[in-house]
């Protein structure tokens, strides 16, 4: 099959209306950068999913990070995209300006080096992320244990993607207004760890097709086409277009490291609430490396008008929120989806903050 045939089929599609969710924020960026919506018939809608770990990090977690960073003898480290997300009062960047010991790093392994250099300081990494990042935390702690380092800890806010997708599919969080998702573009790099077959159970139980795709426009176009064909022929298979990276059963070595260090538990998702067994916490063997990650409590609410929850669950596009581009912009964000570089609202704003129309 040639790409021009695929593009023609997508543009001239006149069948039933379908909604496809791209789960991963990096896919959302690629769709906006490539202007891919303009290649699709009006009957095909792409909606953004919950796959930005920064956007779903609870206010209470940021507050806990700041409290640690203000504690004498403690240094907090974070990925850069976490720095601007507000807790109940301030962000890590603002806390840093007030004297908190916060640094952002490229890799969690930078903390290992720091811990060796400064043995009298407790070095805490703000460990957010999905399955892509979790094995790295596991490897870090295994190396810390081997070296006998006792001055490294993780404050974890890890999320796992399958329970979140099940929440969307089962509608247990529904308020009755959302529209169904007919198929999913599965996140490419989460899938590198968990494998293509991880989606089989959801595909079978909810009768929805999944396609694992890479991040080039060609991959995304091919994924949309393939999901469209499946949806219209009543199929619900899991397919893989990212075969150079994603194996049937994922990365066994990474999964082993995760299972040696972490165990499942409930997680509080900003904008959504608590999802059962959607997180990973340090297990008993590694409990001494936990900086106090459990029991984040109830989420303080966002602005009453903020519709981050509906954006994350794929019920609405960012432009459908009354605050989008007016009261809520990246410089003055009301919700976390606008703050993060991979949050759906932030991405939509970056590529077209004002122009109305379908391909925004």
């Amino acid at each position, binding site marked *: 099959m040639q790409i021009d045939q695929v593009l023609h089929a997508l543009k001239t599609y006149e069948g039933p209306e379908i909604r496809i969710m791209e789960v991963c924020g*990096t896919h959302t960026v690629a769709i906006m950068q490539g202007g891919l919506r303009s290649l699709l018939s009006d009957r095909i809608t792409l909606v953004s999913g919950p796959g930005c770990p920064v956007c779903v990090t609870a206010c209470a977690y940021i507050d806990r990070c700041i409290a640690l960073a203000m504690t004498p003898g403690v240094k907090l480290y974070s990925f850069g995209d976490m720095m601007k997300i507000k807790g109940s009062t301030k962000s890590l960047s603002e806390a840093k300006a007030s004297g908190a010991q916060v640094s952002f790093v490229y890799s969690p392994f930078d903390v290992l080096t720091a811990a060796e250099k400064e043995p009298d300081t407790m070095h805490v990494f703000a460990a957010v992320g999905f399955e892509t990042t979790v094995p790295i935390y596991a490897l870090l702690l295994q190396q810390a244990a081997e070296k006998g380092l006792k001055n490294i800890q993780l404050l974890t806010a890890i999320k796992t993607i399958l329970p979140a997708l099940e929440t969307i599919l089962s509608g247990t969080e529904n308020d009755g207004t959302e529209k169904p998702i007919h198929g999913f573009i599965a996140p490419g790099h989460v899938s590198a760890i968990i494998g293509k077959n991880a989606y089989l159970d959801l595909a079978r139980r909810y009768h929805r097709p999944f396609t694992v795709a890479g991040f080039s426009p060609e991959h995304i176009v091919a994924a949309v086409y393939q999901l469209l064909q499946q949806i219209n022929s009543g199929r619900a298979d899991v397919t893989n277009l990212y075969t150079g990276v994603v194996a049937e059963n994922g990365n066994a070595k990474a999964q082993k490291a995760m299972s040696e260090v972490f165990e499942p538990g409930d997680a509080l998702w900003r904008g959504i609430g608590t999802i059962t067994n959607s997180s990973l916490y340090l297990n008993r063997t590694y409990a001494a490396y936990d900086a106090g990650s459990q029991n984040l409590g109830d989420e303080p609410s966002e602005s009453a008008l903020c519709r981050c929850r509906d954006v994350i669950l794929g019920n609405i596009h960012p432009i459908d929120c009354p605050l989008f581009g007016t009261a809520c912009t990246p410089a003055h964000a009301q919700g976390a989806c606008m703050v993060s570089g991979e949050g759906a609202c932030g991405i939509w704003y970056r590529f077209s903050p004002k122009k109305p129309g379908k391909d925004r």
Partner: protein
Amino acid sequence: MCVAVPGKITEIIGSIANVDFHGNTVRVQLGLVQATVGDYVLVHAGCAIEVMKSGQAEELLTLFDELDAIMAPEKNDAN
């Protein structure tokens, strides 16, 4: 946040590799993969998370062939 970039391993020293990204060499943790010099690895947050089966360019060339292969069962069903 799950951004990951492919690079080529040029040297391995213990559990660390030097990985070439278009001329820039970066030190990368190898503990989550089985890789050798010359392999392309996908690197996320300073750590290789998977060995790539081939260079990305080659994969794109075969993408639409794979689409044909994946669509084939449907054609068979229709028949």
